[in-house]
Every structure is written in C-alpha cells, then in structure tokens.
C-alpha cells in the first residue's frame, strides 16, 4: 500500500515531532494535530491518515502510552503521554537531529573559498 507522506515532512520526523508535543503535556490525537499546526505556524498540517498510524507505531514500540480520559468538553478521548523510553528516544533523536541540521546547514552555506 503506498505510504502517503505528510506535506513536506521528512519520513520519521513526524515521530520526533509527536514525541516532542507529548513531552510538553499529554494530549489526544486531535490535539496533537492542532498543536503541531499551531507551533509550526501552519507549516505542518498533519493528516489523520498519517497521524493515527504514527501514534499506533509509537505506542507499539512502547515510546508512548495511551489512556482514556475525559476532555475539558466532557468527552472521552484517548490521551497519549511519553514513557520513560519515549523520553530517552526524544533526547537521542533531538541530539541527532541537531547534529544533522548543523551539518546540512554548513554544507548548504558552503562557498568556494572554504574548499
């Protein structure tokens, strides 16, 4: 089945972003999407078709944990929160990401003189 990638999102990055969102506070699926859009100022519009499979994958891997709770609007929703190993993963991923983006940034900024 062809995988539909979120708009402009590097595959795998979505996992990191979800982990980061949940690091701030436990959140349900819809909330995560809204939060991602808010923080990125509308750059990332995450489709349910990508979000929910990603949540299922993270939950399966034991990085996040789902739990049914009542929302502020008095509805039942499945709230996800980070597990210990999820927190560790986020830390590692963030560090790796920073290393990579710095490196990529350097390459993109490289001029003839530096060679």
């Amino acid at each position, binding site marked *: *089945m062809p995988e539909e990638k979120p708009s402009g999102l590097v595959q795998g990055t979505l996992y990191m972003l979800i982990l980061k969102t949940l690091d701030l506070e436990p959140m349900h699926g*819809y909330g995560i999407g809204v939060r991602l859009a808010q923080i990125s100022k509308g750059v990332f519009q995450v*489709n*349910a078709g990508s979000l929910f499979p990603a949540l*299922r*994958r993270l939950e*399966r891997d034991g990085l996040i944990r789902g739990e049914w709770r009542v929302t502020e609007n008095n509805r039942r929703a*499945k709230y996800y929160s980070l597990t210990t190993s999820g927190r560790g993963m986020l830390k590692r991923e963030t560090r790796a990401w920073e290393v990579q983006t710095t490196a990529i940034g350097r390459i993109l900024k490289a001029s003839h003189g530096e060679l």
Partner: protein
Amino acid sequence: MRWLNRVIGGAYALARKERAERELDEELRACLEAAIEEKMRSGMGREEATRAARLETGLVSTHSVKERVRDVGWEAWVDTVSRDLRFAGRRIVQRPGRSLIVVLTLALGIGATTAMFTLVDAMLLRPAPWNAHGRVVWIVGLWGRSPMPRNFSYPDYLTYRDRATTLSGVAAEGGTAMAIGGRQPQRVLGALVSGNYFDVLGLRAQIGRTFAKGEDTAPDANPVVVLSDALWTAHFGADAGVIGTPVAINGKPFTIIGVAPRGFTGAAFATDPFQLWIPMAMHDTAKQADGGLLTDANRVHVVGRLRDGVTTAEADAEARVIARQLNSSQTPVDQEKSARVLPIRGGLTPWEQESLAPMFGLVSIVPALVLLVACANAANVLIAYHTARRREFAMRRAIGASRGRLVSQLLAESLVLALLAGLAGFAASFALSTVIVHFGEVPPDFSALLVLDGRALIAATTVGVAAVVLFGLGPALTTTRLDVLPVLKDEGTTSTASRGSGRLRRIMVVAQVALSLTLLVATGLFFQSLSRALRVDPGFDPQGLATVSFDLNLQGYSPDRRAVFVERFVERASTSPGVTAVAAANILPLGGEMYSATLVSNNGASSSRASVAQVSPKYFETLGLAIVRGREFTAAEVAANAPVAIVNETVARRLWPGLDPLGQQVRADDSKEPWREVIGVARDAKYLFLTESPLGGYYLPLPTASGGTFVIRTSGTPRALLASLTDIARELDPDLPIATAQTMDERIHRTVNLRRAVVSLLGVLGTLTLLLASVGIYGVAAHSVSMRTREVGIRISLGARATDVLLMIVRQNLSLSLVGVAIGLGISAAGAAMLASYLFGVTAGDPATFAGGALVLCLVSLVASYLPARRAARIDPVVALRYE
C-alpha cells in the same frame, strides 16, 4: 526490546481484536467530534462544520484511516492471510469437481515423489534412532588414490582403537553367516563385534545385558550371544526366559545374555540386518567356511564415538594421520592406506552409498517427471478457472484491489489445494509403494524400509508447497495481468481465447505430452527387456524343478558326515512321490553366484571365463540339460573322483575348434588339478543371469565331501515338493538350517527382480502420467471450445457443417499434441541412450517402441479432443450467439 513490544502488542491486539477495533473507532470519532466542535465554535453550522472538519483532519473516509492504522502491526498480515485462506476454502468447496481434479492430480505427483523420497531417505539420509545426535561416525579406509571407501582389516582397526584421541571409543563389527539351532534351525546373518561395540553405539540391552569388559579378550573363553529383537521374536517367541539359556551357534553351545533394542540391526541396516552378535574373541569357535575376520583381509566395519566437543572434521584429520603411520616406506603408491571419518547416515554403508547413489539419481527422475506433469495439469485446470473469473478480477481491480492482493488470494487458493494434495499424496505414496512392492516382487526386507514417517509427511508437504510455486504462480500472474476496461466492456466471452493464458496452457499441454511420451517409451523399452530376458532359453528345462541347499560347513560337518548326509538325502528324495530324478552339486545355475575359472587344454589353447560346477550323477538328466556328445558322469566316476570332465559347447568350440572334443585333456588354469579327459559336451546354459552372453561351462565330478545343494525333478508341482524336501532334511538332522528352498522358476524370476521392479515402477507411473496428460488435453480442448462458442456459432450460421467444426477443433488440438510428441521423441531418444546399458534384447532406439508410444499418445489426444469437439459441432447457433 522494541521487537518484543511489537510482538506482544500485535498478539494482544489479535487476542482482543474487537475491543481494539472499538477503541480505534471511538478514538477517530472523538477526533472528528473535537474538530467539528472547534469549527462550530468559530460560527459554522453543524453540517458545514462536519464537512470542513472531515477535510481538514483527512477523516473523509474513516475506513481507509483505520486500514492504515491496522497495517502498522504485523497482526494485520495475519488477518489478511486468514481472510484469504477462508476465501480460498470457500471457493474450493464451491467447486468440488475442479478441486478434486487438482488435488488428485497433485496427490499422484506428490505421492510418487514421496515414495521415492522415503526410499532414498532410508538408504542415504535418515539417521538411525540410536544416533540422533550424530556422535557415532564411520571410520572407513581408502586405498591408493581410489575415492571408494572400504572396510578395515582387524589389525588396522586395533591401531585406530589404540591411537585415536578424538574418539572416546572405537568398535568393530564383522558380518558372517551363522547357523542357529533350536526348534527351527535357521541360517542367519550374525556379527562378530568388539567388546565395546554396544557401549560405543550407546545401546543398552532391552532385556539382559550386552557384553561385559573382558568378554572379548581371551580367545574362545566367553561363548555369549546378544540377539536382535527380530530374532528373539521370531525364533524364541519373545520369551524373556531365554536369557541365560544355551543356544547352538554353528553347532557350538553359546549362552544368551541379552536382546538388543528393538529395531537395531547393526550400524548399517538397509541391506544386511544382523540378527545376533558374539564377541570377536569367539571367532575360532564360530569359525566360518571362508577363513577369518581377524586376518589382514579388509573385512570389518569400524565405528567410533566422537569425544564431547570434537567435530567430525577433527576426527577425520586425526584418522588421516593415523592412516599415514600404517604405511611404510616400501608401500606401493596404489596400496597406500588412508582413512576418512564420515557421519553415519541412512541404512547403507558408505561404500554401498557410493555405488548406489547414481542409480538412485537415475530412478528419482521418474517421479520428478510425474510431479512435473501433475503440476502442469493442475496449472491447466486452474488457468481455465481463473480465466473464467477475469471479469471478477477486472471488477475488483476497478474498485481498488491491487494486483498483488489478487495474486496473493489466488496463491492462497493454490496453497490450500497443495496442502490437501500433500496429505492425499502422503496416503498415495503408501498405496504407490505397496503397488510397486507387489508388482515388483521387491525383497521383503527391502520393502520394510519404506516406512512412511513424519519425515515423509514433511517431504510430501514441502513438495506440495513447492508445487504451489510451480503450478499456482504462473496462472495467478497471467490471469491477473489484464486491462480493466476492455475486460469489463467486453461481452464476457471473447471470440478468441485470451492470449497470455492460452499460450501458457498450450505450452503445458505440449510439455505433458512430451513427458508422458518419454515415460511411455522408457516403460516400453524396459518392459521389452524384461519379457525378452524371461523368454531367454536357460539351456535346461526349468519347469518341474525344485532346489534346496544346506550350509553344511556352518554346522561343522566332518567330510564323512557330509558325504553321508548328501547320499541319504538323494536317496530319500528319490523315493518321494512324483520325483523322477535327483542330483547334488556344489552350486546350481541362476542362484546369484557362480564359481569361475579359465580353462586350458593340453594343446595350449585357453578359454575365456567359464562357470565351474561339481556335479553328481544324473545332474544333466535332472536339469534337463542336454548332453550333445558323449555321456554324463557315472556313479563310479563320481565316487572315485575320476579325472574326467564335461564341457559345454562354447568351451569345446573355443579349445578344440574343428576337432572332436571327446577324449581331449583339459584343466583349470593355474591349478594343482590333474588333467581331465573330456567325456561329454553339454549344451550351453545360463549360469549367473538370463541376460548374460554365452559363457563357458566346465563340470567336474562332485567330491564326496562337498555339496549340500540339490536339484529335484518332479512330475507334480515343485512348489508342493519343497515342504516334503525340508522335512527329509529335518529328519536327517533336526539342527540343520535350510539355506534356500525354492523352485527353479522362482530362482529365475529372482534374477530379474531389479528389472521387474523398474518395469513396474515405470509402468505404474507411466500409466498415471498418460492418464494425467489425457485429462490435460481434454481440459484444453474443452476450454477452447467454451471460449470459442460464439465463433463456432457464427461459423455454423454462415454454413459450416458439423464435421467441419469437429475437424477444426480436433485438428487444432492434435497439432498441439504432435508438437509434444515430436519433442517427447527427442527427449526419449536422449534418455534411452543414457539407459542403453540397462536394456536387454532391444536397442535404445527401438523404432517399434518409439512409434508405438507416439501412436498411443496421438490416439489418446484424438479421443480427448474428440469429446469437446463433438460438443462444439452440436452448438446451436442461436443459443451460441446469445451465449455469455
């Protein structure tokens, strides 16, 4: 640990599938609701908000989102597969006729291959139960540069036993015929073994004990014997009380100390199962006729147990080093000793495996061919049915099913069919080997090896699953390769058969015809060889002859006692009712063995190899072997061992061309024998095999202290006479085992046993493939007729006569078969050339056999295509043009 989480999570989801589904539904609904509320808060109406929320979240179809969430875990795959399998099961039940054809067809192929596997497995592969961990190994000798593994000599065995450090024990066994006394004296194959034999093999007696330490050291001091389970059951009625009781072995008293575990018959068990074991030190007591095991002759099997942690390769390296120490600097290169350590696998010794493996390879081709034909046929049937479903496939593609899904669904169907066929084939292999054993008159100890166990079942299913790939993938791929629109728009039945699958089907038919023709030709050639071999004139009259033989040496008969026994037996047998003549000899023709010598005459000519036999008076009369010149030995000549001889025509021609052989002098080359005067010339006879080319024959008077083999002519049925003959022997000596008792006819048939087994194997399988091929041809013809119904309707309405239609269809199918026949003739010619050395009385290119085979296939395909063609000729054009 992530994979563990995945596995557990998946299993959990699978176990609580409904709950997981409900939660996912609820979660998605909650998400949508939240989005809708959000929109409504910004002032939209409920309906508008719902639409906007669906678009924004991407929850337009919750179904596809759910599908993708489900696909995250591996359990989704289980789900798909189980759905496919259930669907396949339904389709199989819906089409019982088709399913039955496919299953039966494949079962035949699988059955044939499984039966063959069982045989090869028993001979070459299956580890013995006492060697499940493979710690017991063969140590075999190699001589010079020859790659052929050999036995060891006893002194060499001792060297390995004392020097090997990689082995915790090295044991020796040497087989020899022994006579065991009791109520029913019997001649059995026993083994002289080293004292550590059972310990090295890791075996304990099922009752009693095995040999104790030291029981094999002092010569002739410990006459003890361990029985095999089979002998204990057959000879002693499985009575536990026999432990500690005496039994006569070769006429000497031994004490039974134990019974070996059930099923154990020696390190190699397939050809010569041992029935009893005595310590090597009892060698002189159990003396056999043909000298010793303890000499330099290479006559013992050597096995060893690997020390813990030692690999076969390490033991092998050490064995080579020890072997090198056995050679001196004077040893000629071609006699230099080397050794190898080989795993014990199958029931044959390494040297037997080495020589038999090529034959197995050759024979295994046949079931493989049957399997191929069966797969082709099954594929044909499947293609036909898949093709009929093309509209369904197109429809499903149109509403979004991927081709992969369709293919996997069709493969699931094939898989279920193949598994059913695997089970049916397992049963069929049992029936097939029974049939082959029955028609082939395979020796019983050989057929006992055809045990269908778990390994055979696994083999059958493996073959079945491999068959899926062979017969399922092709049809699944071709029939799903379709352009959706044309198929959907089409009326359904096209005027010409779809090209891709049609071509595949035609190729399958050509292959089937070619392969079954090959088998048919091979069967024909072997059948002719067999019948020609059986029609060969043995030179004497085999009808009405009975033969019995006794191993008097084993029983320790003195020459005098022997002479008395022979004389009395001849006397008593002569007076039996119906008996017309009795003779004694040291050997009889066509018994599977022959003594031979090169003859020289006093004029210096020498003959090629000649069969030598010592015979009593009336030998030629009894056998019905004509004396063409001169006369038989008289009783006086035999009693005095007079220097006279009888030769056959070949010898006479060779030694004294153009001269009168009578009165000439002859003797065996290199012998201390006196010159003998030729007093008679006998007709040429067959001595070893019916199929041998003419051999020389040389007959001497039977010395009084020789013999033990008798031939008796009766006017009644020889079979019935055998019982009274054995009774006579028992009255003369109740402890004497009977070595053989059979009619001459049985002996002759036994010499062609292998040929007969091959013919029956080929015959059964050849008939099956022919049957399969005819079903295949019929299937293609029937299918093409149904695909061309409209075309035929148009032709008829335009004025084609029924015979035109009939001829058209038949011609088309026949031309297909003719291509197959042509290819088949080519394969047969190549195959027959390979088999030439196994044929007798018929050339590998025998035109009649080839033409006959081709004719049979043409006729079969004519009949198989006639039936559908007749149906086509009766098509009503009005109905046909409306036909969908």
